[in-house]
């Protein structure tokens, strides 16, 4: 595994408020909001003339918004024309891929500063069309006719994990509870409510409609009730991430110029990317993702760090089961052992290795093409000690990791950050 030929740092990062933003905000509006938010976090300021290239991660504006060619479209919004601008696609890892290409472009010596970003506007189309569009990231020829949906594919992985390791739905509920606890503290998140608050507002609604008031004992009880409907067994509504509109933006700079913009750059010391067969059935293994393990192997090797060195991580919890599998694929826990660690609270904000302090895709939201860049935004904030509200972890974060998975695991980008 090669090293980066020169060091690369994040000098600023930002995002727009995630949510059901359409039609109030469309792709260009959200992208500019993310850009401005990122510019505001570059300590000594940054101007378009300083930036050499603009990489945009986007999964499917073609199908969601009937618009392709987002690279030059976005670049022009902030005066980057005629600099190189391009869109990158890797399903839900689209901006993770754009991020990595930005890192490689700087390390190669061709560019000094690259703006990497991600944007997706999903709520312009109906839920069935969202389901169908997301399903194009799985195999349209051999999985779609069998009825595969995204929740369905991760649910199938869950069924195999349950069978092999004795994992239960209770283990997954704890992930949802934790991520909503974190999202509550994130002003940029789509759902800024804990599960307890969601339950309270449901009870209020039931009261106003004169319906029987459910007597849920606690969050676990609620998550096992009919108020949390089965989407794709064993996954229920609150096991699924959200349908979201959003954008995120990160400025990457070469070591030679980074200090001009900030005294405290966040260094990228490891970057890895892996792939796998598009179809779940074609991988031989259903309880883990080889693309993630390969991406992690490369990133660890490049950085010289191992799983034990990582203090916090943002992982791709498109479904609760995906967070559990990610913790195993990244080597934080042995295969089949993540559930116990989650139960012990190790992944909570006050645990030994907090996972998804942003609220994750579950609560912050999952505008698919923007998710990888948004993970870098949260990592930047946690390492700078500027995470909003009560979300900042209580220790100094020197080493962090992000894990951005595409499709049902056919693309994965893992990045390691150090101060």
């Amino acid at each position, binding site marked *: 595994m090669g090293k980066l030929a020169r060091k690369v740092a994040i000098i600023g990062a930002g995002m727009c408020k995630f949510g059901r933003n359409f039609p109030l905000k469309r792709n260009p509006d959200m992208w500019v909001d993310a850009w401005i938010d990122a510019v505001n976090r570059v300590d000594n300021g940054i101007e378009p003339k300083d930036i050499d290239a603009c990489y945009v991660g986007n999964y499917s504006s073609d199908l969601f918004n009937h618009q392709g060619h987002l690279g030059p479209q976005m670049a022009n919004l902030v005066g980057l024309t005629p600099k190189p601008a391009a869109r990158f696609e890797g399903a839900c890892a689209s901006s993770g891929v754009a991020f990595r290409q930005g890192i490689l472009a700087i390390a190669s010596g061709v560019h000094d500063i690259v703006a990497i970003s991600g944007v997706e506007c999903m709520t312009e189309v109906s*839920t*069935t069309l969202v389901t169908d569009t997301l399903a194009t990231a799985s195999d349209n*020829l051999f999985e779609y006719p069998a*009825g595969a949906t995204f929740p369905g*594919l991760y649910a199938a992985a869950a069924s195999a994990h349950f*069978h092999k390791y004795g994992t239960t739905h209770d283990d997954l509920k704890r992930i949802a509870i934790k991520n909503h606890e974190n999202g509550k503290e994130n002003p940029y998140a789509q759902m800024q409510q804990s599960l307890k608050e969601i339950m309270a507002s449901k009870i209020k609604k039931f009261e106003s409609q004169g319906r029987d008031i459910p007597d849920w004992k606690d969050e676990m009880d609620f998550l096992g009730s009919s108020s949390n409907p*089965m989407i794709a067994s064993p996954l229920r509504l609150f096991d699924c991430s959200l349908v979201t509109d959003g954008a995120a933006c990160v400025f990457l700079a070469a070591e030679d110029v980074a200090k001009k913009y900030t005294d405290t750059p966040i260094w990228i010391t490891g970057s890895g990317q892996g792939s796998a067969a598009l179809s779940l059935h074609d991988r031989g293994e259903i309880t883990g993702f080889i693309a993630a393990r390969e991406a992690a192997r490369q990133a660890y090797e490049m950085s010289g760090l191992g799983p034990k060195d990582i203090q916090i991580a943002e992982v791709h919890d498109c479904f609760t089961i995906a967070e559990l599998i990610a913790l195993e694929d990244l080597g934080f826990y042995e295969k089949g052992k993540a559930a116990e660690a989650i139960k012990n609270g190790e992944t909570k904000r006050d645990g030994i290795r907090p996972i998804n302090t942003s609220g994750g895709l579950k609560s912050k939201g999952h505008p698919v093409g923007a998710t990888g860049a948004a993970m870098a935004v949260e990592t930047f904030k946690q390492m700078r000690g500027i995470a909003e509200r009560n979300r900042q972890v209580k220790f100094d974060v020197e080493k962090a990791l992000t894990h951005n998975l595409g499709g049902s695991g056919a693309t994965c980008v893992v990045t390691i950050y150090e101060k």
Partner: protein
Amino acid sequence: MPEEKEITVQNYLDYINNKKLMGSKCKKCGTFDVPPRKLCIKCNSTDMEWVEMSGKGKIAAFSCIGVGTSFMVNKGYSMKKPYCFSVIELNEGPMISGQLVGVDETKPDDIKINTPVQVTFLETELQGGEIRVDLGFEPV
């Protein structure tokens, strides 16, 4: 068998339309693939032949899906009437996706991994009367 048809996606789908589950076998290393491959990813050989699969296997993974694809929604499936998506490990080794029928999709806890299944071909009448055939499986 073996047949002379070129190994292509369309020829594989045409076989399914004719209710035959066909795969490829590498003449060099003996690896089976479903869907078939023109190039063996185990040994890099292009010396491949069509073989008909036994159609027998076992459940490797499954999910009873309430919020389905438009194809399944059009077939009448819904939250109240889920369908079962499954990954089947064929006796010859490869895994393949198919709709699992002959089970109670409203009781996923009763469906067990490793249950033996056999292939069945599911017919759907499309608008205009054309019949589409898809791969399905049912418990033996």
